[in-house]
C-alpha cells in the first residue's frame, strides 16, 4: 500500500491537480445541467459531497469483505441509499430547490465521480483517507460547478445567487442559461485550465533544463 497517496495528498489532489470536472472530465451531466444558477450549482455540489463522503466511508469500512465480482453491486447499493436520503432531505427542507433540480438529484446515483472514488480510493484505503479523499473531490467538484454557474448566471441573468449584480441596462444573454451556454462556458473554461496547466508544465521543464547542466 506504500504507493497509494496519503490522506493529505488525496485531499489536495481532489481540489485542483485531479479536479473531477476539469482534469478527469467526470460527472459532466450535472456540470452541464444544473449550472444555470449559482444556488442550484452549490446545492448540487453539496448533495454530491454528502453522498460521496458517506459512500466512501462505508465502502472503506467494508473493503475487506468485498468480493471482486460483486463490488460494483455493493457500491451502487450504497450510493443509491445515500442519494435517496439526500433527495428526501432536500424535498423536506429545501423544497423549491428540490423542484428546481428535479431529476438531477436522483441522477447522482449514476454520477461517475462517486463510483470512481469508491473504486480508486475507498475500496483500497482506510476510512480516514477515504473521507479526506471524498472531501477533496467534493470541493473540486463544487469549485468547478460554481465557476461555471457564476459565469452563466452573470451573463445569462445578470445576477449572482439570484441577486442582481449587473446594471439595469445589462441585456441578459438568454443563451447562457440555456443548454448551449453550458457547453460554451464549460468548453472555454476547460480550455483555459488546460492552457494554464500546459504553461505551468512548460515552465517547470524549462527550469529543470536550466538547472541541470
Amino acid at each position: 500500500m506504500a504507493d497509494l497517496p496519503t490522506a493529505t495528498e488525496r485531499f489536495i489532489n481532489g481540489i485542483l491537480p485531479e479536479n473531477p470536472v476539469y482534469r478527469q472530465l467526470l460527472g459532466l451531466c450535472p456540470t452541464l445541467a444544473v449550472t444555470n444558477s449559482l444556488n442550484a450549482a452549490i446545492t448540487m455540489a453539496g448533495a454530491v459531497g454528502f453522498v460521496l463522503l458517506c459512500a466512501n466511508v462505508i465502502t472503506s469500512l467494508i473493503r475487506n469483505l468485498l468480493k471482486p465480482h460483486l463490488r460494483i453491486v455493493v457500491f451502487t447499493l450504497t450510493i443509491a441509499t445515500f442519494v435517496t436520503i439526500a433527495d428526501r432531505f432536500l424535498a423536506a427542507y429545501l423544497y423549491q430547490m428540490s423542484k428546481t433540480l428535479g431529476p438531477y438529484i436522483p441522477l447522482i446515483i449514476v454520477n461517475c465521480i462517486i463510483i470512481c472514488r469508491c473504486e480508486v480510493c475507498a475500496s483500497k484505503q482506510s476510512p480516514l483517507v477515504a473521507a479526506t479523499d471524498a472531501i477533496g473531490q467534493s470541493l473540486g467538484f463544487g469549485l468547478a460547478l460554481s465557476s461555471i454557474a457564476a459565469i452563466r448566471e452573470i451573463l445569462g441573468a445578470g445576477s449572482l445567487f439570484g441577486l442582481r449584480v449587473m446594471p439595469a441596462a445589462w441585456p441578459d444573454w438568454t443563451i447562457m442559461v440555456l443548454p448551449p451556454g453550458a457547453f460554451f462556458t464549460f468548453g472555454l473554461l476547460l480550455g483555459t485550465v488546460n492552457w494554464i496547466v500546459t504553461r505551468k508544465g512548460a515552465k517547470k521543464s524549462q527550469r529543470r533544463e536550466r538547472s541541470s547542466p
Partner: protein
Amino acid sequence: MDVEKKSFAGGLKSSNLVQAWLVMVLAVGFGISLAGVQLLLGPVIEGNKLNETLEKVPELVLGNFLAAKMASENQTLEIVPRQVTVKKLDRTKFYIVYEARYQGDLKGWVVKTKGQGYADTIELLLGLSPDLRSITGLFVLDQKETPGLGNKIITHAWRSQFVDAPADRTLVVIKTGSSRPGEIDVVTGATISSRSVTAMINTAIGDLRNPLTTAPSSQGKGGKHNG
C-alpha cells in the same frame, strides 16, 4: 462423511446466495434506514407540497391587496380541499379544488390543473369567483418553458391579464393588442405556451362549471339552514 461435509461446505461457499451475503445484509440495512428516513421526512414533504398551494389561495381568490390586508389583520380563510370527478366522453378526469370560505361565506374556488405546454407539462392554480362568472387569479406552479420566451407566462404582467376576465365564455388568444374582456395577449415569440395556458383554463372552467355550481349551492343552502 468428512468428504461429504467438505463438498457440502464447498457447495455452500460457491453458491450465489452465500457469496452475496454482504449485498443482502447491506440491502436490508439500507432498506430499514431508508424506511426510517421516509417515516421521518414523509409528512414534512407532503406538508411542503400542500403549503405551496395553500399559501397561494388567499391571493388567488381575493387579489393581492385584500390578501395582504387579511394577513396583516391575522385573519385566515378556511380552505377545504376536495376532489371533483368529471366524467368526459372517453375518460374521467380528477380536479383538486380548494374551497375558500371566510366566516362561512364562500369567497371563491382555487382549481389545480395541468396540461401540455411547449416544452413540458405546465401546472396552474386558477382562482375563480364563487358564482364562476369571473377569474380572480392565476398562478403558475410548475413550468419548464423556454427561458426568455415561454417562461414569461410566470410574469405578473402576463398573468394579470386573466384577473377579472370573464369565466362564462371562452377566452381567446390575440396576437396584437387585446381590447375586449376575454381576450388574452400572446407572449411575444411564445404563441404555443400562451395558447396552452389559455386552453387549460378554458377546459378547466368548462369541466367544472356543472359540478361546482350545483354542489356548492346545495351546501350553501344547507349551511344557511343550519344557521
